[in-house]
């Protein structure tokens, strides 16, 4: 039995190495003095210097984060209120709406992108920051709903009854009872929406115009043009940031018991 277990560990280690190899490969070559990812000719920080001097790329990074922050913030507000109202509905209607809610979770990116492109074109909206922002809000709302709703469902309704009996009005109940109880779900939803937005490529690619671009779209067009170690330097920073984000997420979530399995990071 012991032997079998160690075999499993060897396998797990192997898969982990496989999963991280491409990432560390990128990071390794970001310090390369040569010009591509085939031969390491010497250590340098030049690629990072080029990166920080590239004001266009820096602007895109800032834009991407601003977009992610704004879209996930709005999606969190809309989604949280949506989740609370879904629970109040009758079972039959709730399930229909929940089905609709999940459409954007399971649809392939290209379908979402193409259908939003048709929508924006028919409405006559100019493609750019606003269309991308609306799209990101749209595909982030369902994940927030899915993170918040289970918490609200399992909340003990006697808490609300008690608050009512003690003379709290509805906005007090919302602020003092419901929202604090839902906080872990809301934070989880916000984080997920934030990462969805940061990671999205396909939908943005469809609905963005010439004057607005995000990091994913920029990496795509640069990668099509060939290898530039500036992108490697960027990967190094992105990876460090991801670790920070995950650690931060776990740190915030550590003490909350109300959040269920739904908070798993996917």
């Amino acid at each position, binding site marked *: 039995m012991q032997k079998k277990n160690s075999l*499993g560990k060897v*396998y*797990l280690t192997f*898969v982990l190495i496989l*999963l991280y190899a*491409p*990432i560390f*490969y*990128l990071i390794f070559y970001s310090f390369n003095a040569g010009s*591509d*990812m*085939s031969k390491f000719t010497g250590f340098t920080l030049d690629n990072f210097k080029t990166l920080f001097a590239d004001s266009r790329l820096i602007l895109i990074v800032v834009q991407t984060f601003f977009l992610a922050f704004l879209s996930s913030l709005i999606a969190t507000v*809309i989604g949280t209120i*949506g989740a*609370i*109202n879904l629970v109040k509905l009758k079972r039959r209607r709730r399930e229909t*709406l929940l089905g*609709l*809610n999940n*459409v*954007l979770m*399971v*649809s*392939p*990116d*290209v*379908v979402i*992108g*193409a*259908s939003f*492109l*048709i*929508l924006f074109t028919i409405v006559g909206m100019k493609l750019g920051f606003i269309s991308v922002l*609306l799209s990101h*809000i*749209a595909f982030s*709302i369902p994940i927030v709903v899915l993170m918040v709703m289970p918490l609200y469902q399992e909340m003990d309704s006697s808490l609300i009854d008690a608050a009512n009996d003690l003379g709290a009005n509805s906005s007090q109940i*919302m602020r003092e009872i419901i929202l604090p109880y839902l906080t872990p779900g809301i934070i989880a939803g916000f984080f997920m929406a934030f*990462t969805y937005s940061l990671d999205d*490529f*396909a939908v943005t*690619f*469809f609905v963005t115009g010439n004057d607005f671009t995000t*990091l*994913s779209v920029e*990496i*795509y067009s640069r*990668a*099509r043009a060939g*290898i530039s170690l500036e*992108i490697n330097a960027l*990967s190094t920073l*992105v990876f460090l940031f*991801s670790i920070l*984000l*995950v650690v931060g997420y*776990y740190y915030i979530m550590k003490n909350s018991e109300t959040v269920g399995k739904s908070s*798993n*990071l*996917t």
Partner: protein
Amino acid sequence: MTKRIYSVPYFLWIVFFVIVPLAMLLWQSFFDLNGHFTLNNYILYFSSGTYLLMTWNSILYALIITVATLVISYPVAYVLTKLKMKQFWLMLIILPTWVNLLLKAYAFIGIFGKYGSVNNFLQFLGIGRTQILFTDLSFILVASYISIPFMVLPIFNALNDLDDNLVNASRDLGASAFQTFTQVIWPLSLNGVRAGVQAVFIPSLSLFMLTRLIGGNKVITLGTAVEEHFLTTQNWGMGSTIAVVLVVAMLIVMRMTKERRD
């Protein structure tokens, strides 16, 4: 109830960003390049060898990717459940999904490139440099690589909920390790497998950025075809038709992988 008003954005969202776009996609699929209402897109799609072959290839690729990912991920999920600090190890498996997909694809351009590590290794073995990038093999490898965490997670959750007593009972009653696996563990983890297959198969049909960056233009999936028609040839009608096919394929897959209670 004044609070009802606050939920208006949510219901507006359902109408304008879920129902309306899908309806418009369906509507658009009945128009040709000149804006005439027609069924020709569907007729062309189902009568043209090119489109049917492309669809078949796309499904085949997605199937290979899904099976490869499942074979790699199932043992991983199983080993994870046996560890102390399993949540930590699970997090290590999931962390790579937080790195932008495009960056991972970009890494493989370097790794699989003509003078990349894999080719250097092949050279070292005496096999010599071969074309790896821009082949269907590289597309399948990279797509599987990207999908592994999405397969591990649901299977891990299913296996983690599995009661150890059932496994012990099976062994006590004389079942071999293999029998225990096929008769007890596998059936009880099927819901996790179904969720994983769903999470990998559907995106695999539409990964157009990977087919472009890694598959060269040799691999064309349904997603690639949609992107091509919408953004390159500007034939939105045909693009929408393919997108509708993609949605139907998605619905079939979801139906087949629906969670079952027995």
